[in-house]
């Protein structure tokens, strides 16, 4: 593990910006629709776009916890606030730690980081 030791006051120059985009265009050639109909269709298309973007799930499956196995161990590869951790976690141990430290379930990823990492 290596830290990044850039001085923030000296490193604000943005000289290498990555640009990429996805474009959707739709043009109906040969017909002219009333403005109200155009707005209606435009609204419907936007709704569909929001719906489809919301449905996106591009993250690889390996980033998910595999907790369905009968084994007490599972491999969980994920990023905790940027620090990638791939550990073989013992579910029983984890729940014991939770119990001992009286830390709520929703905070257990910190336990994973601090106690097992």
């Amino acid at each position: 593990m290596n830290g990044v030791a850039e001085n923030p006051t000296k490193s604000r120059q943005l000289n290498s910006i990555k640009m990429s985009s996805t474009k959707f265009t739709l043009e109906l050639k040969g017909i002219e629709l009333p403005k109200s109909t155009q707005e209606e269709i435009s609204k419907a298309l936007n709704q569909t776009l929001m719906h489809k973007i919301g449905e996106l799930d591009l993250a690889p499956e390996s980033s998910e916890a595999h907790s369905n196995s009968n084994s007490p161990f599972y491999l969980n590869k994920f990023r905790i606030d940027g620090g990638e951790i791939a550990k073989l976690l013992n579910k029983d141990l984890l729940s014991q730690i939770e119990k001992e430290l009286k830390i709520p379930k929703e905070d257990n990823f910190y336990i994973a980081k601090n106690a097992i990492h």
Partner: protein
Amino acid sequence: MQYIKMESKKHVCPSAPLYEGSRLLGIVNENNEVSILTEPMEIDDVFIASASKGKLPEQKFRFTNKCVKSGCKQWTGEQCGVIKRVLENIEQSTIKNELPECNIRSECRWFDQEGISACKVCTSIKYINYIS
């Protein structure tokens, strides 16, 4: 007489949970990194409904919302603990040379705190608050 240090500039959190006022900042891609939108996208109930199916929305997307400072458990008292911790611990190979085109820098808490070092690791950061 005590003086309280006032921070006039409003900051946004570049990795907020999905709640009222959140805007879509990025999409987790096939490489398990985040593709940052140049301009955060306003989201609506249609998006929230479809994003809430399956995995948690925060596992698939990144959201931006106002930085709530002491209202967030990541706030150390003076700054955001997330980006500091990431920069101290992230694998060198994960750091990017190319920066995402991003329009929230002028108000970004992480950028204000760490400069472009924050941008170089930003796409590696995912908000996860739950594992099972």
